[in-house]
Structures are given as structure tokens and as C-alpha cells.
């Protein structure tokens, strides 16, 4: 890596006129400014990714523990006591800590892995590289974004070790359960830490999001019109818009909750008798919190999905050697999803006693969102039609992404329809639905991205054999875990139960639960294959020898194999065409890079 940076200095002298961009002169910079407090978007991307991976391991390990409880409620597992100490005395998980684990699993995976770890990584890595910018609009704010995330992570991590345990009211932390210390052990100091951590997370997310938006709008290279941007950038753009518009609402919800918890206000509390006494709170509404929460909570689902959609589009097109089908339709459907994402939040609340009329409006809007989603699926299918498909590891994950997105998306039609939701709400059907669509499917988008852009990040490839093993175990495992869960849900089995054996209606699923747990544990170990592959490949992977290993027309592959801070050594290349020109360039290549000027007589309107 270092030799390229030194080269960068040499080049830097030749084009000092370039708007004073001296980032790549910092070859002698200290380890701390280069790798820790770095302002280079590529390094920040790696920081987000590696922090995300560490959180993902912790979050997934938690799911292993509570799956052990769910699958084998009558057994004891001494190994759990090794890890969890008194929370699992004698190898048997304590119910209170079971709920803490469920809560932390959700919080960690939704926010720390699939929001920060996903869009933090790829927005940072790809936006400047793919639009032709030397860095973000504000590299300093970008650095702050990571460090706020880091501090937020520290708070969340510390909360795992406090005596009364971490927050345990579910990742949605509905009050009054989360507001009253008397209601649950986790609603004590654990919940305070959770709120502090999440508030910092919102700050991080806003700093990042504003940066992504302003970079995309203002810092595109010459010729990079909005309609010449790769779909990854469009997707990351709308992801940032969603975050910037909805996270502040969540923040306001948290502020009110903090007031209710600590300063005696009654925003969410009314008529409560708990711990042997009636509380003075009157006149608040517990449902208000749910509105504020889901006003972020639902866009959040798309904050998680959109980057995966963008990357899958890019990967499917690239490895099929074929332009993405319906580029404009893909953008329009992204816009449709973004707008509708703000108008469907109350479908999480059909059974809260909300007005049935209001409910029916939300049914209509919710099912409307299926239309742009369907358009995207059909466009992906047509993209691979008559392609020349190379089954590289990223391509496998992109195909898996589409498969899972279809499976998980379709079950949304049951839950979005209030008349069906009234029975399925808060059952395992919901668990199966969102794990497939925004859990595993989003992860597949992320994996496709990681395997595809790993060469750009580290100048080496990840190991293919391990990649294929990882892919098949994860895909098969995901279906084995979540497909049968739909049946449990249709049978009315509620989620977030510690033990079902006392229930006449649900105890027949005991053997199924064991099966699911075994599958989940296997999938967990398969993810460790990925982790090993990732970290070992950083240092030992096969080196990238050519500048553009995937034969991609987009700009990030016109940088040096190991780009320094500032990305391009000379001038930033100019762009002449859209990013999906997968056609014969006349020299035996099956693609034309965006930087190639139009040939005489060639019109750009061809797509």
C-alpha cells in the first residue's frame, strides 16, 4: 500500500493546480492520523466495516444463546455460563437475560450492523470513488460520523456488563415497559445507556447522511450527470435522504422518553399501577412513542434495504456483462419506495387500538409499496436474461439477494393487510418475514458488495472457495431457519417467548424449534468462515494484478489498485457515458468505461 502512496506524492507535484488537493502528500503521516483518526473516506469505510463485523459477531452470538434456550428449553449448556456468568447460572438462561439478549440482538443488527456497518461502509467507500470525487464534502464531519458511532458502540457495549443487565424491552423499547424501572430490570441503568448510545448513533447517522447527500449533489466529476450515476449511488443517496429525514423524529421520541424516565413528565405514561403503587402520571399516550418510533422504524427498513438493492443491481449487471435493465425505472422505483417509506409506518400498529379508518389508509399505502418493489425484481430478472453470467462469489450473493428479497417481500403482503395482520401480528410469521427480507436479504446485498469491492478496499481478493462455501451454507441455512417459522406464526405462536412448553396451543413445535436452533448455530459458524476469510485475505489474499479485475465501466476501477488519499493520481477522469455500457468496444472488451469518449456517430441515448 505504502509504495502507491509514495508514488502519489510524485504525481502530486505535477498537478498542484488542482484545487489544492494535497491529501495524497501525507505519505509520512503518523499511524494515528492515517488509520485511526483518518479523514480518508476509504479508511473510514473500512473502520465502519470492521466495527460492523465485530458487532455482527456479537449480535449473532447472542442469537445462538437464545436459540439454545428456545430449541432446548429443558437442557443446560455450561458453555453459556462461561460466557454469560450469573445470567446463565448452571447453563440455563435466565428469562430476564433472555429478553436482554433478544433486545440487544435486534438493536445491534438493525442499527450497528445493517445501518452503520452497511451504508456507513459502502456510502463512504463508493460515493467519492464512483462519482469521481477526491473525498467527501467534509472529510472531517465524515471522521466525526465514525467516531460518534464508535462512542455509541462503547456505550452499548458497556451496557452489556452493568449489574441489572442491558435494555430488555425489545429493540423497539416501547414505554411504559422501557420507561419504568419497576417494570423490568433492564429498564434501569441499561436502558439509560441504551438511550445515550442511540442518541449518539443518531448524531453519527446524521453527520454521515448530510455528508453523503451533499457529496453526491455537489462533487460529481465533469460529465457525471445525475443520470450517469451508477444505481449504487442512487440507492445510497436515497438511503441518506431517508435517514436524514427520519432519524431526528426518532431522536425526539427518545428525548421525550428520557424526560419521562428521569424528570417526571408524562408524555407516554398514563394511569399506571406498578410495583404496588399508582404512579402520578396521567394524560400521556404510550401509543405516541410508537408513532415516533415507527416514523423512523419503517424508513429504517429501507435504509437497510436500499444499499443492498443498489449493490445487487451493480453486481448483477456487471457479472452478467449486461446493462441493468430499466435504469430509469430503477431510479423511479427507488423514489417511489423512498416517498412511500414515510407514509406506511402505522402498519406496525394495526392492533394498538388505532382508528380502523386510519388503519385502512395505511393498508392501501403499504400494499402500494409492493409495486415499485415488484418492478425492481422484474428488472433484475430481465438484467440476467440473455446475459453472459459469471458465477463469481459476489454474483452468487446477488442472486441469493434477489431470491430472498422475493421470498421475504411476498410475506409482507400478508402483514401489510390489516385484516390478516390482526392474527399474524407479533407472531413468528413477523419474525420470519423481516429476518428474510431485511435481515438475510440485506446481508446478502452486503456480502455481494464486500466480495465485489474487497479488491478495491484492500488490493487483494477474498478466497473464492471459502466464499462459495459461505454462500451455500448461508442461503440454505437462511431458508431452513426462517421458512418453517412462517408455519409457527400462522399457528399463532407469539414471538419473544422464553419457553413455550406450558402452552397447549404452541408446544407441538418443540422439535421444530430444536431443528431451527441447530440450523441457526450452523449458519453462525458459516459466518465465521467469512470472518476468517475476510481478515486473512486482507493480509494474505491473492493480489489484484490488473486495475479493473471485474471489467467494470464505473469510475472506481480507474483509480490505482491501491489508491491513496485523493483517489486519482492525476486529474480526476471525465465521464462521457452512463455506467452500464456493456457492449463491444471494438478492442475485444465487452464493456466501455465511463471515461471513454463517445465514438463518432455514437449517441448516448442508446439506453
Amino acid at each position: 500500500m505504502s509504495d502507491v502512496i509514495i508514488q502519489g506524492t510524485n504525481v502530486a507535484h505535477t498537478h498542484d493546480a488542482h484545487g489544492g488537493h494535497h491529501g495524497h502528500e501525507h505519505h509520512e503521516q503518523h499511524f494515528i492520523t492515517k488509520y485511526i483518526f483518518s479523514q480518508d473516506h476509504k479508511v473510514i469505510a473500512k473502520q465502519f466495516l470492521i466495527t460492523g463485523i465485530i458487532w455482527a459477531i456479537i449480535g449473532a452470538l447472542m442469537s445462538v444463546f437464545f436459540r439454545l434456550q428456545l430449541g432446548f428449553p429443558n437442557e443446560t449448556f455450561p458453555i453459556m455460563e462461561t460466557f454469560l456468568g450469573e445470567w446463565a447460572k448452571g447453563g440455563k438462561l435466565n428469562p430476564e437475560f433472555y429478553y436482554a439478549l433478544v433486545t440487544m440482538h435486534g438493536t445491534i443488527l438493525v442499527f450497528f450492523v445493517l445501518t452503520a456497518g452497511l451504508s456507513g461502509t459502502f456510502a463512504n467507500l463508493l460515493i467519492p470513488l464512483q462519482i469521481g470525487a477526491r473525498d467527501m464534502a467534509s472529510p472531517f464531519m465524515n471522521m466525526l460520523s465514525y467516531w460518534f458511532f464508535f462512542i455509541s458502540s462503547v456505550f452499548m457495549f458497556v451496557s452489556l456488563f452493568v449489574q441489572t443487565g442491558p435494555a430488555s424491552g425489545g429493540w423497539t423499547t416501547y414505554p411504559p415497559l422501557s420507561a419504568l424501572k419497576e417494570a423490568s430490570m433492564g429498564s434501569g441503568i441499561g436502558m439509560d445507556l441504551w438511550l445515550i448510545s442511540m442518541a449518539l448513533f443518531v448524531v453519527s447517522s446524521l453527520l454521515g447522511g448530510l455528508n453523503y447527500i451533499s457529496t453526491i449533489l455537489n462533487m460529481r466529476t465533469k460529465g457525471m450527470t445525475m443520470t450517469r450515476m451508477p444505481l449504487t449511488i442512487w440507492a445510497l443517496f436515497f438511503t441518506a435522504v431517508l435517514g436524514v429525514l427520519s432519524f431526528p423524529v426518532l431522536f425526539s421520541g427518545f428525548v421525550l422518553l428520557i424526560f419521562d424516565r428521569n424528570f417526571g413528565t408524562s408524555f407516554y405514561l398514563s394511569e399506571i399501577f406498578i410495583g404496588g403503587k399508582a404512579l402520578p402520571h396521567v394524560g400521556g399516550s404510550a401509543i405516541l412513542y410508537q408513532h415516533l418510533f415507527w416514523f423512523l422504524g419503517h424508513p429504517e427498513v429501507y435504509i437497510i434495504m436500499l444499499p443492498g438493492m443498489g449493490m445487487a443491481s451493480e453486481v448483477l449487471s456487471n457479472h452478467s456483462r449486461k446493462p441493468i435493465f430499466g435504469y430509469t425505472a430503477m431510479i423511479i422505483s427507488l423514489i417511489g419506495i423512498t416517498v412511500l417509506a414515510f407514509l406506511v409506518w402505522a402498519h406496525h400498529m394495526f392492533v394498538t387500538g388505532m382508528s380502523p379508518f386510519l388503519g385502512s389508509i395505511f393498508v392501501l399505502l403499504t400494499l402500494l409499496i409492493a409495486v415499485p418493489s415488484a418492478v425492481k425484481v422484474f428488472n433484475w430478472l430481465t438484467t440476467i436474461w440473455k446475459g453472459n453470467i459469471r458465477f463469481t462469489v459476489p454474483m452468487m450473493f446477488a442472486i441469493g439477494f434477489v431470491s430472498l428479497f422475493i421470498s421475504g417481500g411476498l410475506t409482507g403482503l400478508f402483514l401489510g393487510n390489516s385484516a390478516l395482520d390482526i392474527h399474524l401480528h407479533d407472531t413468528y410469521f413477523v419474525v420470519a418475514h423481516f429476518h428474510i427480507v431485511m435481515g438475510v436479504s440485506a446481508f446478502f446485498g452486503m456480502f455481494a458488495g464486500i466480495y465485489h469491492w474487497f479488491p478495491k478496499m484492500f488490493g487483494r481478493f477474498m478466497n473464492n472457495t471459502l466464499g462459495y462455501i459461505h454462500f451455500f451454507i448461508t442461503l440454505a441455512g437462511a431458508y431452513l431457519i426462517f421458512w418453517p417459522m412462517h408455519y409457527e406464526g400462522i399457528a399463532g405462536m407469539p414471538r419473544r417467548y422464553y419457553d413455550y412448553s406450558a402452552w397447549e396451543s404452541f408446544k407441538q413445535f418443540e422439535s421444530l424449534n430444536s431443528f431451527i436452533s441447530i440450523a441457526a448455530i450452523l449458519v453462525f459458524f458459516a459466518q465465521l468462515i467469512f470472518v476468517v476469510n475476510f481478515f486473512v485475505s486482507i493480509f494474505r489474499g491473492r493480489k489484484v494484478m490488473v486495475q479493473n479485475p471485474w471489467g467494470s465501466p464505473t469510475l472506481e476501477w480507474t483509480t490505482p489498485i491501491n489508491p491513496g488519499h485523493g483517489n486519482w493520481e492525476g486529474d480526476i477522469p471525465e465521464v462521457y457515458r452512463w455506467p452500464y455500457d456493456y457492449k463491444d468496444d471494438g478492442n475485444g472488451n465487452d464493456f466501455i468505461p465511463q471515461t471513454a469518449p463517445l465514438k463518432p456517430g455514437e449517441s448516448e441515448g442508446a439506453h
Partner: protein
Amino acid sequence: MSGLISILLTGLVFVIIYQIAKASEYATILRGEEKINARVNRTMAILLVAFFLLGLYGIWVCHEALIDKMLPVSASEHGVEYDRMFLVTLAVTGIVFLITQTILFWFAYRYQSTEKRTSFFYAHNNKLELVWTTIPAIAMAVLVAIGLRNWMNMTSAAPKEAMVVEVVGKQFNWIVRYPGKDGVMGKRDFRKINDANNVLGLDWNDKDNMDDVVAQNGELHLVVNKPVSILIGSRDVIHDVGLPHFRMKMDAVPGIVTTIWFTPTITTTKMKEITGNKDFVYEISCDQMCGKGHYSMRGTVIVETQAEYDAWMAKQQSYYASNNAAPAAAPAAEGTAPEQKTDSVKAITMK
């Protein structure tokens, strides 16, 4: 010690897997990348199709294994509608699922890279886009129409002849209140709650409360074929009255009253015959996370004939009688209390 050994073994497995993977990488370089890539490509295409076919078989196996464990026939009138709508939605989504997944895996196999193949430059087609925007839109319109019709039915006002009961959740059990002979439930106030003798905070100044019957064992008695309107409340945190056999569910939120109504159509005894399970019982599950005992917050529903219900009710003593026989002076003291601002039962809060 065994923990250490298993960690070591796991580590060893990873090292071995990694070495094999690394070896295959060297082999690729030795034998020529092109050739290996072509072979890998073919293998992966086949494996994807194999995965798809195995997956379809797996879906069938899963269905066969679990179908007997599903809920019995719906025990409420609208539940029958519910099941019908569920099947329609399942049919629509099932067809879409099969078609799109088949196309996905078939295209992947069919258009795998070969030496001769070149891709077809096909960037857009507005007619196609229009078609596959319209078709889902129409399908959605149909599903929305069916859904809203059923939704309106189940959330409409309860029929006049419906019996009324109140179900109140607390950590971690259900309290059921019947209005007694007068058919009216009296006021209650959370400030009057006392776990010893007034679990619901009934206002003893209100005459309507005198004959109300309270069951703390979580047993909800209903009459078959008679509509029931349930007022749902909570004493502490949010709970949820889940009635899977009746295809119904509603949150119990402190500070507001939510309602549902339905008509049970099958008695518990009859359902024991239908399911062939002599232990069968309708259960009320708490479906909203409410704390450490959430999973044990179980109630039961007993659906019986009018005669059985009347016989059972005749045996019940009013809550007032069973708790307030001795301290009869209590109501007088309450007189000075300020007017209740939070009369939670009579306020209609289904805004």
C-alpha cells in the same frame, strides 16, 4: 477444560478449511485460470439449480411435516372469512413466488457464461415496464379491496345484543371482569387499585360496580354463537390479548381502552372432539413483550352453551361482596376524592 478443547478444535477446523481453500487457489494458478474458471462457473450454475430443486422439495417436506400442527378450524364467525382471505393471499403470493424464483434460477443456469456466449445489450423497454407496473398494481388493488372489506367488518361496532366483558392485563396475568346482573360495568380508577382487595380499582361509589364479577385466574367464559365485545385495558405496561383460535388480537394499553368483538362458534367441548385432543383449551396469549414473565402470561377462554354459562355465573360471587363485606366504611372516605379525570372504562377512546 472441555470448553478450551472445543475452542481449539473449532480453530483447527478453520485452519484446515482455510488451507484447503488456499490450496485450491494455488491449483487455479498452476492449471490456468481460464480453464478453472470455466469449470467453476459450470459447477456453480448446476449447484444453483440443484439448490432450487432441493428447495422446492424441502418446501413440500416442510409442509407435510407441519400441516398437522397448525391451528384447527377457526372458532369464530369472522375467522372463517379470515381463513378464506388468507388462502387467497397465499395463492396469489404462491404463484408469484414460484414464477419469479423459477425464472431467477432458470435464467442463472441458462445464461451461464460460456466461451461462445456474448450478452445481449438490452437496456430498457417501456412497454414491459408498464406491464409489470400495472399487473402488480391490479393484484394489490384486489388484495386491498378484500382486506378492507374484512377489516371494516371486524372493526365495526359490536351488535347490540353482544355480551360485554373486560379483560385487563397486568404483569403477568389477565384479570377478567363481567358486568353482573345489571349488564353494566362500573367505573374504575387506577388510583383505587389495591392488590389485596381491589385489583381493578373499582369505584365503590358507583352502584354499577356492586354486582360486577372479577376472575383473577385468567378464565374468560363465553357463550357459543353469542357475540362478545371485549373491553381491553392494562394496569401497567402494554400487553396484548392474543386469541389465535378466534383470529383476533388487540393491544392492552395503559390509559386507554381498546375493544374487539367477535362471535365464538365452537364450544370448547366440541373443539376437543374436532382436534381429538382431550386437553384442548382456547388460550389467551400475551403478544406484546411485557417483561420477564411475558411468556407465562396465559389466559384461557371457555366457550360453552348459554345454559352452562348461566350455571357457572350463578355460582360466582360479586367482587364487592367477596372483598368488601367487612370494611364497609371505605366508600364514605372516597367521597372527598376529586372528580375522576381518568375514568378509563366509560370513556370511548377508540379515536
